[in-house]
């Protein structure tokens, strides 16, 4: 009757889905060369499909080495490789957590409570995440199931409440950008699903069929992300495309009965999503660094990670320039490609080499 300390594949994909959707709900078109329109929807969709294809080596690796994950697989080849992979993924997740806290801080202090300090938001959300990490992965995964309901309700409420105001002609027609614009947008969209890297780490703690769930998950992301981009563009057209947080702006127009504005309520629901996202990244960081420093240092790892995320995340949240600095975008894009494509491919090749060596010895 001892706890199996694992979650189902469905629970893991719910966690990852919420994380991915949170990025989309608080996205800004400021730095996007296509600036909304049908092009943007199509490029984002293409980016998601491309990401799914890029994740194939990882899925293959996880299928070959079931129950090991990328760190375990690398460790199986060479111990140093396992440690290195754990360190790289750990740092990547710290970076992702910092970016998430920064983006959300910026979003909340810009939209929800302009007079509040970034520090307070950073500290509160990170403290809550620390609490969740101590509660364990299973607790977080189950919480994600409930948060998913809230998120779905919030997105559908805004979508349905705005139906009378949809005007498809307001959306900029497709093929209105230059090839460079498309490439840049595609590259950006490609880096917007770093959650795939989480599959590589969580795999040993997941029971169930990873591959089948992966494609359902990607499909759900494709649909939801397209909807989140479509709604503000259909309602506000060019005006929506020029706004920092289009879906949020759309929610400010929506009315629900006698409630004048539902945006604060919607953002309230999204806070629960952000809680899940930051907690998940902190959990992943802990899992990676535990491999290096050992489980006895778990508490220290969690506390140090929390301080770094809250402190550095705050620095990234003061202005739009700091949140969406081009250098950060490039770091994000390259690092995402490294963790979802390059490193899994290297470890996968290592498994083939090992198999060949074993056969030779036989």
């Amino acid at each position: 009757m001892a706890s199996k300390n694992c979650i189902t594949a469905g629970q893991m994909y719910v966690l990852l889905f919420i994380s991915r959707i949170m990025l989309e709900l608080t996205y800004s078109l400021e730095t996007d060369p296509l600036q909304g329109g049908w092009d943007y929807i199509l490029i984002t969709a293409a980016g998601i499909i491309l990401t799914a294809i890029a994740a194939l080596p990882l899925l293959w690796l996880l299928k070959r080495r079931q129950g090991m994950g990328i760190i375990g697989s690398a460790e199986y080849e060479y111990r140093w490789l396992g440690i290195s992979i754990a360190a790289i993924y750990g740092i990547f997740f710290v970076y992702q957590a910092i970016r998430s806290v920064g983006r959300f801080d910026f979003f909340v202090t810009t939209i929800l409570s302009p007079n509040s300090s970034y520090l307070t938001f950073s500290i509160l959300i990170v403290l809550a995440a620390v609490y969740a990490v101590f509660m364990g992965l299973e607790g977080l995964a189950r919480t994600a199931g409930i948060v998913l309901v809230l998120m779905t309700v919030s997105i559908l409420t805004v979508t349905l409440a705005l139906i009378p105001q949809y005007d498809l002609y307001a959306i900029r027609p497709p093929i209105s950008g230059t090839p460079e614009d498309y490439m840049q947008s595609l590259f950006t969209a490609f880096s917007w699903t770093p959650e795939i890297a989480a599959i590589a780490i969580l795999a040993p703690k997941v029971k169930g069929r990873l591959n089948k769930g992966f494609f359902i998950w990607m499909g759900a992301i494709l649909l939801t992300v397209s909807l989140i981009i479509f709604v503000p563009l259909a309602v506000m057209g060019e005006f929506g495309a020029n706004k920092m947080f289009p879906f949020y702006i759309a929610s400010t127009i929506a009315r629900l009965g006698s409630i004048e504005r539902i945006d604060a309520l919607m953002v309230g629901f999204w806070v629960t999503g952000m809680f899940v996202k930051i907690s998940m990244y902190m959990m992943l960081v802990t899992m990676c660094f535990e491999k290096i420093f050992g489980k006895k240092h778990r508490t220290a790892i969690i506390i140090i990670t929390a301080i770094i995320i809250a402190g550095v995340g705050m620095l990234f949240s003061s202005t739009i320039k700091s949140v969406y600095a081009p250098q950060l975008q490039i770091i994000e894009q390259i690092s995402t490609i490294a963790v979802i494509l390059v490193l899994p491919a290297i470890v996968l090749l290592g498994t083939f080499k090992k198999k060949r060596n074993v056969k030779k010895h036989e």
Partner: protein
Amino acid sequence: MFDKWKARLTAAKQNKNNKQNQDNNKTLIEGESDYIEQNDFEGQHVFTKEDVNNEAADDIENKKPYAKAQDDAISENLMDNLIKLRQEFGQSADLTIREFTVGKFKAAVITIEGMVNKLMVGENILKPLNQFNTDGLDINESFKFIRDNIFAATEQDQLSVMTEVMSLIMSGFAVLMFDGIPAAIAVGVQGFSFRGISEPLSESVLLGSREGFVEAVRINVSMIRRRIKSPKLRFESYFIGEQSKTNVYLCYMDGAVAPQVLKSIRDKLKTINMDSVIESGYIQPFFEQKPLSLFSTVGTTERPDTVCGKVMEGRVAVLVDGTPFALIIPHLFVENFQTIDDYTSRPYYATLIRILKYISFFASIFLPGIYVAIGTFHQEMLPDNLLYNIAKAEMNTPLTLLEEALLIHIVFEIVKEAGLRLPKPIGQAVSIVGGLVLGDTAVSSGFIGAPMVIIVALSAITGFVIPKLNEPIVAIRFISIIAGGYMGIFGVMVIMSMMWCNICAMNSNGIIYTTPVSPFGKTFWQDVAARIGWKSLSKRNLVIQKLPGSEISDD
């Protein structure tokens, strides 16, 4: 109870006999006389140290109070025994020893004042003994005859150690001792007074039984047995508490309960090391996975029908002598919202009430926090006329919304506590003064705004809809008010997320606390979000270990 003891004694005796066959010369080992149970005046059986160890391994120490101490065998000398008893009890006024003679033999009946029915002692023990003729019989023959033929009682046993004597007299038995016999006879003549069976105050129902548990655990056991006339219903008796030796019963349905769950509960029961167990709440934390959590993974009830429903689903009930509150393990979060009325009302109405309870739970915790958050940070959410009225009411008060909310909730909790602890008539007066006079004057004097009183009243009333969750509701309500006052909706939602995470991370003896909501199962639609009709509900044959996410294996 005696049957089990006898079965164990017989088993121990058989072990002993086997051992004796192997080595006839080692019947009694020198230096082990401390461990001898002197039942052998008839050549029945002799216990050695090994037997005692065997019994200990067989958990007999939990079944039989004082069984560990085998060093106090009953003496052949009646006076020695009585002196020993008086020494053990000191000058305790309730120890009653009645010395008399049965024919030519000296004897004594030992009881505890108030624990026995005096009429039964007179009629069933003393009167037959006075009429018993011992002519031609020696003391051994007389004892045997008296033991087997004289007493008109269903509960009777032969004792060999003083600790057993003390234990049983304190449980309401009369113990009979003879001079010249190193044994005693215990006769069940319990007759202590207890509160009559009445409707449970904490769990009133509209359409259901009016019976609630009482403080006497044996009566509670009988109330459960009366409802489930199945031999598969089992009760296990334990004695917990170094000093109090409180009788604790485990109640379960054999075949329905998962062996792992039962073993886990038995193991936890054995870890309890307390001087006294006065209430079931004393031992409740020992069954909880996270004792510091705001929510409990152990359910409580004072309704026998609820216990019956739960044990039929594979749960274990823990009944503690001296309290009408039984513990139910494992316990799920959704069970806090279920009452017997849900199952006696029509399904559509039960479903409606369930939904109202869920709304009440969230409203009770988060309504004041959300109100403070909206009033302080997100006024744009409110319709113009409502915003105008709130602003008008709050304009004249000296306190901020956060301060008002905190103050009025503290006052409310104080009034509630005062009303609860005081004698009923005074308690009602306090409620009237607190609720009407204080509230009305506070608003009319401009100390607090009228909308805040409405919010507090609403959150209080909604909290009473789920009385089982009163403790976490009150605690989280305060936290959410503070979070809402400082961080707006953001703060309230972070607190809500943490609360969910806490609830979702809990596990009640291998059963996930939030099942079947998360992980999701079809039971959610049958008996959580809705309550389907009995025709369908009776087909599902639910046992708790089959719920989604259960860590209990089938083997």
